[in-house]
C-alpha cells in the first residue's frame, strides 16, 4: 500500500468504500465464466488504474507482465486440458476446440481482473487509513489490522532490500556468474541475504513497536479519523447495486 500525496480520485476515497467495490468486483469476476464480460471488466479496471489510481502505463505494464508469467501457462494448460467442444482449430500438431479456449481465456482474464483490482486497492490506499478504518468501522482488533498493514508495507521494503543485496553481490562478484553452479550459488546468496534481512528487520521493528507501547492496551486511539464521505457511500451503493444487477442479468 502506498501513502503518496492524495491527488488521484481513488486516493481521496476511504478504504472501506474501495473494499466494498473490490469485493463486488471479485464476486462478479468469480461468477462470469465467459471471456467477453471479463475483457470488458479488465478494460474498465485498466482505465481505473490509470486515471483513478494514477498508475503510469509503464508501471501497469510491468505489473501485468508479472501476472502474465503465471497467467499464460494457465491459459495454455487449461486450453489443452479441458474437454473439447465446439469448432476445432488446428495449429500444427496441436488441436484446439473453441470451448476450452474460451474457458481458458475466461479463467486467465479472471486472474488478471482479481490481481489488478487488488493492485489498484493497494496502490491507492494509505496503510494507516486502512488500519484506522478496519479498527474503528469494522471493529477488527487493531493488532490484526496492523499485521495486515505491516505485511503490505514490508513487501516493497523487502523488495528494496533484496535489490540492494543483489547489487552488493554483483559488485563484490565483479563478473557475471558462470555455469550452473555459480548461478545457483549467486541465487542462494541473494535469497539468504533477503531472508536474513527480513528476519532482522521484523525483529527490529517488533522491538521498536513494543518500545513505543504497541500492544500495551486492548484498544488504541488514532490521530486520523475514519471518515466516509458522501462520495464513499455513493460508491458503495453503486457497487452493490451494480453488481447485484449484473448478477441478476447474467
Amino acid at each position, binding site marked *: 500500500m502506498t501513502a503518496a500525496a492524495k491527488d488521484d480520485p481513488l486516493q481521496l476515497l476511504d478504504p472501506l468504500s474501495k473494499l466494498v467495490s473490490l469485493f463486488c468486483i471479485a464476486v462478479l469476476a468469480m461468477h462470469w465464466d465467459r471471456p467477453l464480460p471479463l475483457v470488458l471488466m479488465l478494460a474498465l479496471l485498466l482505465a481505473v488504474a490509470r486515471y483513478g489510481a494514477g498508475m503510469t502505463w509503464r508501471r501497469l505494464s510491468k505489473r501485468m507482465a508479472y501476472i502474465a508469467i503465471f497467467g499464460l501457462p494457465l491459459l495454455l494448460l487449461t486450453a489443452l486440458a479441458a474437454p473439447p467442444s465446439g469448432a476445432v482449430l488446428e495449429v500444427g500438431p496441436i488441436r484446439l476446440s473453441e470451448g476450452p479456449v474460451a474457458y481458458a481465456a475466461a479463467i486467465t482474464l479472471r486472474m488478471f481482473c482479481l490481481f489488478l483490482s487488488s493492485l489498484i486497492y493497494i496502490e491507492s490506499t*494509505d496503510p494507516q487509513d486502512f488500519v484506522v478504518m478496519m479498527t474503528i468501522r469494522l471493529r477488527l482488533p487493531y493488532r490484526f489490522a496492523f499485521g495486515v498493514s505491516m505485511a503490505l508495507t514490508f513487501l516493497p521494503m523487502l523488495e528494496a532490500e533484496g535489490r540492494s543485496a543483489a547489487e552488493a553481490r554483483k*559488485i563484490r562478484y565483479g563478473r557475471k556468474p558462470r555455469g550452473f553452479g555459480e548461478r545457483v550459488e549467486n541465487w542462494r546468496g541473494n535469497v539468504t541475504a533477503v531472508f536474513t534481512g527480513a528476519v532482522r528487520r521484523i525483529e527490529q521493528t517488533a*522491538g521498536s513497536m513494543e518500545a513505543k507501547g504497541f500492544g500495551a492496551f486492548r484498544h488504541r486511539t488514532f490521530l486520523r479519523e475514519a471518515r466516509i464521505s458522501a462520495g464513499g457511500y455513493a460508491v458503495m451503493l453503486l457497487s452493490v447495486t451494480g453488481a447485484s444487477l449484473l448478477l441478476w442479468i447474467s
Partner: protein
Amino acid sequence: MDPATAIWLENVTYAYEQGSRSVIDGLSLRVRTGEWVTVCGASGSGKSALAGLLSGYLPRSGGGHREGRIEVDGLDPATAAIADLASRIGLVFQDPDAQLVQGLVEDEAAFGPENLCLPPDVIRRRVDEALRDVELLERRRDKVHELSGGGRQRAAIASVLALEPPILVLDEAAANLDAGGRRRLLALLRRLHQAGRTLVTVTGRLDELALAAPRLVVLDAGRVVLDGPVEPLLREHRGRLARLGLLPAETRVSAAAAPAAAALRAARADASPPLLEIRGLSFAYGEGKRAARRRSGALPAGPCALRDVSMRICPGEWHILRGENGSGKTTLSRLILGLLPAPAGAVFWQGRDASRLSVYDLAAEIGYVFQHPEQQFVAAKVLDELLFGPRRALRLRAKEPTPEPLLRQAAELLRQIGLAGRESESPYVLSGGEKRLLSAAAGLMSGKRLIVLDEPTAGTDYAGARLLSRLCREAVAQGKSILMITHEPEFFAGEPTRIWTMEKGRLREY
C-alpha cells in the same frame, strides 16, 4: 529505589547468547533524575548493549541472557508492563530504519501516543511539538523512507520525543547526521535537559555533542572504567581516553608524509590517463534508462539530483566527497557504478562511456563499500569475508586452498582491525564499528582499482577512523584510487586527499 535516581544498575552482566562472551561484565551505574550523562566506549565495549538493556529491548526482543539488577524509574525494563516502560524511557538507535514502523512522518510520530490511548487532541499537540523540535513539521506528510538518512534519523527521534518519556537514551543517534543536523540535535538535547529530562547519550567519540553532557561514563570491555564530571576526566585521563580511541590523536600523518604522497600523486596523475572522468553530469530520478541514454549534456526535465557535475579520478588519488544529507553524494556514487542509468557521454571509466557498460563491467575494477555493512556481507565467516574478493580475482574454486601470502596478508589485516582470533565468527555478530572496519578492509583488499567508500566513519570511534585512514593511505600508496563519501572529512585532515563538496546536486572542489 531513591526517587532522585532515574537509572540504577547493580553488577549487571549480559551476553547475547547464554554461555557466550559477556558484552556487559559486572557493570554498576547510577544516574540521577534530570542528569545528562554521556556513556562513551570504543567499538565492542558494550555501550549499545547497555542502551538496549535500559530500554528493555534486551533481552525482551533482542534475546540474550542478563544477570544483575536494573531499575529504570523504579521498574525493571526486562519485566515491566509495556505501557509503563514506554512512558518512562525512550531509546533512539543508530540505524533509523530499525525503528521506523509507519509510512508517513506524521504517523511515525503519532504511533507511540496512539498506543498509549491518548486523546487525539493531545496526540496532535505532541506530534506538532516533536516534529517542530526536529525540524520536520514542513515534511509531516512525506514518506519516511523517502527522507535522507539524516531526515529518517530525525523522524525516529521525533517518534520517541512524542512519547514524552522522562528518560531518553540516544545510542549513536548523531551517526547519520551531517554537521547541521548534529548542531540541531545538540540544541535540542540542551533544551530537553533544561526542561528536566534525564538524558543518556551513548557514543564512540568524545566530540562536541558527547562533551556537552556534564557527566562522562567510559566503558571498556563491558565495565565502567571512568566516571565523573567531563572536564576533570578529560584533563586527568586524556592519554587513556585517546588510547581507547575516544579522542582524536594529536598527530595523524607525519608532516613529511603528506607532501611526499602529494608529489607522488601529482606525478602519477600527470603520467596516467584518468580512471574515472565525469563531464557535465546532470541526473534526475524517475527518468527511464532510455531517456538517460538519449540525453547527453542536456539538463533533465524533472528536479535534478545532480547538476553539471564534473570530476576526474586518476590512479593513486584519494578523493573525499563531502556534503549535507541528501545533497546527492550517494546518487553520484551509484551512477559511477552503473547502479543508476548514467546519461550517455557523461561518465567515463578508463575512457569508455559508462552508460554502455554493465554493472559487472564496472564492478570488475570498481569496488563499493556500502553504508550499511550487512548489505555487502557474502560469507559466513570473518576470514572468508575478507578473502572473498581476492579469491574471486584469482578465480579460485570453493575447494581450492587460498595461497599462503594471501592468508598472511588477511591475518595481518585482521590483526590491524582488531579481529585477530575471531576469524571463524559470523560477520553479522560483530559490533557496529567492527562490521564497518571489516567491510572497508574487505573492499580495500579486493584488488580493484577504484574503491568507493560510502560513509565509512559513521558511528565509528576515533581509533576506528584512524585505522581506516591508514588502510586508505596504504591502498593509495599501492596505486589504488579512493573515492570516499563522508560528512566527516575532518577525520582525514592531513592525508593526501582532494576534497569535493556536494551542495544541492552541484559539485565544487573544496
